């Protein structure tokens, strides 16, 4: 095929705009048997913290109408084991490797960012700011413009890598957070993370999730994600990556038309492990059908 699919996300060069979303694609290798990993634009790995974390007790997931709630609780192997055990494999494949990071304090974020910036094979950082700041009474970094700016600035200060900041949708005005993060030096934004939700077992009268609440993902949230991406694209000048409920090429194209420079596929990977490749193929087909030879001529072409 003869269409140009490459995009640049604040210094991160991708051969196509399709990435896999953090927490939904393991460390990449889990999917090796199910699709040609080398087709992907980028792989965003499961969120990494300084030390390994066990996450929340089960049950951790429950299906909802066109979606799912998860309370995995950021279980991960920790940044050291990631570098020793997971990164070597990721270095052998083509897609850009984006390390998603989180912490409970600005210092946590900084340390993880430092360690990963020195590791060969990490191409960008994605900073998940949906986590509660334990020092400041548990307010999520991502729901306060000042905190969001602070953590962005601190990470930028110690990393030579492109820094993508991942925004939470559980806020009144996402553009306020986006502008603050942009001002603090972020190279790009990704949105949305999950919406906080809940589900109850009416026979036992207990929450379906041991953690009570969880993050809602899947096609149910796509309209909210698309609206927030569109608002954010109109509010900042750094690139925006669209995430939320993308199940097929048509969904991905909606985000691109709204102005997203790239997309991330999350929950859909669970339902069809080769969906990311289907989406890449579908976008290419759409470009061909519409006589568009460069993806940039599609991005942000929404007519209002």
């Amino acid at each position, binding site marked *: 095929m003869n269409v140009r699919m490459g995009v640049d996300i604040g210094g991160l060069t991708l051969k196509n705009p399709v990435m896999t979303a953090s927490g939904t694609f393991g460390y990449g290798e889990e999917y090796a048997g199910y699709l040609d990993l080398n087709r992907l634009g980028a792989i965003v790995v499961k969120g990494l913290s300084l030390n390994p974390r066990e996450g929340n007790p089960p049950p951790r997931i429950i299906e909802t109408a066109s979606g799912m709630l998860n309370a995995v609780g950021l279980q991960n192997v920790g940044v050291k084991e990631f570098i020793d055990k997971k990164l070597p494999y990721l270095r052998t494949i083509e897609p850009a490797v984006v390390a998603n990071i989180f912490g409970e304090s600005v210092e946590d974020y900084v340390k993880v960012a430092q360690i990963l910036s020195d590791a060969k094979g990490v191409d960008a950082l994605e900073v998940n700011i949906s986590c509660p700041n334990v020092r400041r009474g548990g307010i999520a970094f991502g729901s306060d413009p000042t905190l969001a700016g602070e953590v962005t600035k601190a990470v930028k200060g110690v990393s030579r890598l492109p820094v993508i900041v991942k925004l939470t949708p559980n806020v009144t005005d996402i553009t306020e957070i986006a502008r603050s993060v942009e001002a603090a030096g972020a190279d790009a934004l990704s949105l949305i993370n999950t919406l906080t939700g809940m589900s109850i077992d009416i026979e036992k009268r207990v929450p379906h999730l041991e953690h009570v609440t969880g993050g809602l993902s899947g096609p149910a949230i796509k309209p909210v994600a698309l609206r927030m991406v569109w608002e954010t694209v109109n509010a900042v000048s750094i690139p925006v990556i669209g995430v939320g409920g993308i199940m097929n090429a048509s969904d991905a194209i909606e985000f691109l038309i709204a102005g997203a420079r790239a997309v991330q596929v999350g929950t859909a990977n669970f339902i069809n*492990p080769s969906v990311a490749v289907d989406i890449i193929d579908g976008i290419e087909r759409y470009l061909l059908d519409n006589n568009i030879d460069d993806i940039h001529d599609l991005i942000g072409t929404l007519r209002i």
Partner: protein
Amino acid sequence: MKPGTFATVFSQRETVKGHFLMTVKAPASFREAIPGQFIMVRLEGSTPPFLSRPFSIYSIYSQGNDTFVEIFYKVVGKGTLAFSRLQEGDALNILGPLGRGFDIPPSCKKIVLIAGGIGVAPLSFLAQHCGEDTRGTEIICYLGAGSLETVAGLDRLEKICSAVEISTDDGSRGYHGPVTGLFKRDMGLYPEDTTWIYSCGPRPMLRGLQKLLKDQPCVCQVSLEERMACGIGACLGCVVSLRPDGAEGSLVRVCKEGPVFDIRDVEFGE
């Protein structure tokens, strides 16, 4: 590669009340399945279910170039209800075979299966497998059900096993009480070193079995169930807590490290 696969329903029927036996025409890659492994099943283009649903492989056989996978399931919610309405020729999407199956000891003399309700599915596949491979092994099955109308999977087991003992919660057939109670009655008959026990069923039953076997050091493997999203180890949704030999607990993925575990390692909770 075992990518998600289009498959078609070859046949489906209700065997006992609310329990369906579905035969799916599948790609040849499924031939390699081991008892205890499972598949993820979903519909194409229609919900519910939104996520795929895990089912143990009940049996696999080939005819010419075609491989047939059987699943045996009970209707408990939206997903299984939707599956139960499928008819011959309808399209399905299946992923598998997945997970780590049962260990099959070539030397053991006695195999004891303890099934609670639809937990019979993976055990029946195991019985079939052992019945074929290691002639001379004695297979005894304890089958628990709610009442006589829901004793599931009996016909097939009776053909393979040396004995099938039945228990029902309401006493309408066989032993009156939990299947663990029935097994307890016979426990003395099984020598520790030559008996392998395999079990699958509701959590309270497995917890009971675990207690029963505290001072009985014979091997016992169980197949666990947990809600799953991906089935391939990526979502971390299906974890259970293991605490082998009193060591510090750790969370493992049922879909990847399991679904089969040593019963002594599992922390069943309250």
